């Protein structure tokens, strides 16, 4: 792709400004089953997205065939799209902007095939040796990715960055009598020579074994600790409420709530794309706008909403550098990046001690379906365990937790200090809530 040729052609066709966004992704995945390599997947995909301002309308398109032969057709389609768009909130193609750039050290060392083979066989053997109730290692998966992002536009912007990651995922099933339970464990793999297979196996196996003998509990309202991973998944599902795009369109419950108290005093939320504790940092968003650290909620008060250039234009505000795509083949939306609920001081065990009697939720299922972002109502299948006298008691399954997320976050009794960044751009510590409606027997 001759980028300058595409930009010149677009400008000659009447575009005010034009952008070329490319994502180059190389991936390798290996799975093992019963000590043998089961599958090996290797890929290289270059994705291109084009965006341009045509007669005051922003128009965009993506392609996986950006050969120059396609140039006229694709840009022609973009013009048709712009002509059919009626919204005036276009966003802008930016001039180069500077920021104090942060670098994150790349600690990932690529393992060779032999060390993956050795590690996977070791993990499988250790799972079976760990407990006689382990009856199947259902999944052993290694994945590595190297991706780079490049944004060039007719206003002389050239932004390029790259990231790399690799991880090991294991699934294990345990059985006692007719009862079967399973669990998964995902760990980033920095250097396979330092990978602690014992700790990895113990974490996944214990998680599955602890689910055995689980039963439902009577319906009622219980004090609940939502454990950090479950809290992260719940918060992620509702993170859209901070989107300036949805707020501007009037379909976020936080419309007209800026500077109002929305959560409990002890809740603060920060979005910081340059946070080097997280897996992937971004100095610029997918529009090339510099990112920055923002306090979305300060001690319960809604202080900042997130914006791209387009959503900011609708509300006559400034972008916050949160114009991110879901992939190169999607339009720019508004998304948090490295967003977290500020942790408290207590350890998880201290939270248990504080709650004394209640329930710990370790995981939610069906988050894609069981929430309503407009009302923030939720009703979700979950699992976990009961707490008696501040200690873990029987495991619980086949229950639901239901309520309203805005109301829930007003009922935070305490926040744990166990925040941990994993593979996602959102993280939460464990949180103790006064009460959540639980449905069971």
């Amino acid at each position, binding site marked *: 792709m001759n980028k300058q040729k595409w930009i010149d052609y677009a400008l000659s066709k009447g575009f005010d400004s034009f952008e070329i966004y490319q994502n180059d992704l190389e991936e390798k995945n290996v799975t093992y089953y019963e000590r043998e390599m089961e599958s090996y*997947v290797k890929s290289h*995909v270059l994705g291109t997205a084009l965006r341009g301002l045509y007669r005051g309308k922003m128009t965009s398109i993506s392609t996986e065939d950006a050969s120059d032969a396609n140039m006229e057709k694709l840009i022609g389609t973009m013009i048709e799209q712009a002509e*059919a768009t009626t919204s005036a909130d276009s966003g802008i193609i930016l001039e180069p902007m500077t920021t104090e750039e942060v670098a994150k050290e790349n600690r990932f060392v690529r393992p060779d095939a032999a060390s993956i083979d050795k590690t996977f066989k070791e993990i499988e053997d250790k799972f079976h040796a760990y407990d006689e109730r382990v009856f199947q290692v259902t999944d052993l998966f290694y994945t590595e990715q190297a991706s780079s992002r490049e944004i060039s536009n007719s206003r002389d912007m050239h932004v390029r960055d790259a990231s790399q990651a690799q991880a090991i995922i294991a699934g294990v099933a345990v059985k006692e009598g007719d009862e079967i339970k399973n669990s998964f464990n995902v760990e980033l793999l920095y250097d396979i020579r330092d990978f602690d297979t014992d700790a990895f196996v113990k974490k996944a196996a214990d998680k599955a074994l602890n689910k055995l003998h689980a039963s439902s509990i009577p319906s009622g309202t219980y004090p609940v600790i939502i454990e950090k991973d479950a809290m992260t998944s719940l918060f992620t599902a509702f993170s859209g409420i901070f989107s300036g795009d949805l707020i501007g369109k009037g379909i976020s419950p936080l419309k007209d709530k800026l500077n109002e108290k929305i959560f409990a005093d002890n809740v603060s939320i920060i979005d910081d794309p340059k946070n080097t504790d997280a897996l992937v940092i971004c100095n610029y968003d997918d529009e090339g706008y510099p990112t920055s650290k923002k306090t979305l909620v300060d001690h319960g008060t809604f202080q900042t909403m997130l914006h791209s250039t387009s959503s900011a234009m609708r509300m006559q505000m400034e972008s916050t550098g949160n114009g991110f795509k879901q992939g190169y083949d999607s339009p720019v939306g508004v998304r948090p990046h490295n967003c977290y609920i500020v942790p408290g001081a207590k350890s998880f065990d201290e939270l248990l001690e504080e709650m004394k009697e209640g329930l710990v939720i370790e995981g939610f299922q069906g988050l894609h379906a069981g929430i309503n972002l407009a009302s923030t109502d939720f*009703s979700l299948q979950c699992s976990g365990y009961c707490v008696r006298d501040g200690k873990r008691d029987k495991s619980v399954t086949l229950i639901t937790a239901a309520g309203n997320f805005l109301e829930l976050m007003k009922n935070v009794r305490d926040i744990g200090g166990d925040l941990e960044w994993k593979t996602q751009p959102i993280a939460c510590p464990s949180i103790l809530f006064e009460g959540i409606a639980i449905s069971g027997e």
Partner: protein
Amino acid sequence: MLEKKKLEQYLSRCMDSHADFAEIYEEKELSETINMLNGSVENIFTKNTFGVGIRLYKGLQAVYGYANETDEKTLTDLIDDLRDALGKEEKGSDVALQRVEYENRHPVKIRFDEVSLADKASLLQRANDAAKAVDERIVKVDGTLLNVRQEVQISNSEGRLISDTRVRTRMMVTAYSQEGNSFQSGKDSPGGGMGLEFYETVRPEEIGKEAARVALVNLVAKDCPSGKMPVVIDSGFGGVIFHEACGHALEATSVAKNQSVFSGKFGQKIASDVVSAVDDGTIPNAWGSQNIDDEGNFQKKRVLIKDGILTSYMVDRLNGRRMNTESTSSSRRQSYMYEPTSRMSNTFICEGTSEFEELFEGIEKGLYAAKMGGGSVNPQTGEFNFAVLEGYMIENGKITYPVRGASLIGKGNEILFDIEKVGKTVKRGQGMCGSMSGSIPTDVGQPPIKVRSIIVGGTANE
């Protein structure tokens, strides 16, 4: 798409290895999304997908590679990488392909790419206007029109060369209602495996009105009670109960490795006598239909359960090897970026004999789930969940008041025995199903059914 000669050359190269089977999947897809908010066209996005996936088998081992550059060097390098993973062997393989021709079962009358964007946006406008006209409490209407045209060509080392063009359209409308501090939503999102002629039978006005109707019901709905109770689940998308509670656990992906609650249950009773169910990928122009599956086999109708007895799993080629059985033409994938595996197509519970009113008889206190949302399942434990988008309480055999914020949970292998009554009229609803090989269009469906007892997750504890 690659020419036959090139494909033969690449497949022969693949087979010069320890592989016993090789396949090349080529894909070109045009996907167009038009979004309208309150009558204003907010965004139009066109996505052009293009790439090739190459797969080699050696017994139960599979190696897969994909790329979106199809020049000789890229593909040869990719094949050599895959051969290295299995082991090279210069056998002088010579694959000869024979193109398979067939009659298209899913004809398209109005191609979306031949209709102007303004005309397509006017379909959304009709839905928007109809939703707004229902009631002044409908404050926002968000509509999206999705049109997809996917062309695939599949060739393999057994000499098969076959192509398919899959076209689908869907209109997704969400209406938002407001009264005082209560802000609710309702949605409707029908679709079909056809062109824009779909909207001649499913009119945009009806889609808009239906979304608005549900949004208004939820505005006055009370909190849903919790606990175990009888539930009547209506037809159409209500079939998500079978999709989640049973369908996924009948896919060879989990069955083949003994990771399903239904592994080893072929020929056994897994549901009550009133339950028969099929997965039918051949229904003309249905949302989940195809002429061929993603391994190039002609789609089929699979009778999964007959009068409560398990009669078929859904099997792809690789898992078929593990299970010592033939593929049931159930192999599907989102795109060339995914290895295909066994998936559902149009899956539904078949018609029964009960009248609609009979389903409510004898229920002292229960839930009528009129409209369902999505859900998920753990095939190994059978535990599933799904959301109720429009619900009503049943008291003394009568539908009384609307409730909101409910979900239903249970265990698939138990719930199938708890289906007591099955109604007469099957309707299907459209959804996107996510699993190992990506997100694919599938229909769910059923007549209205009565489930003896299921855990209802609500907020109103009594």
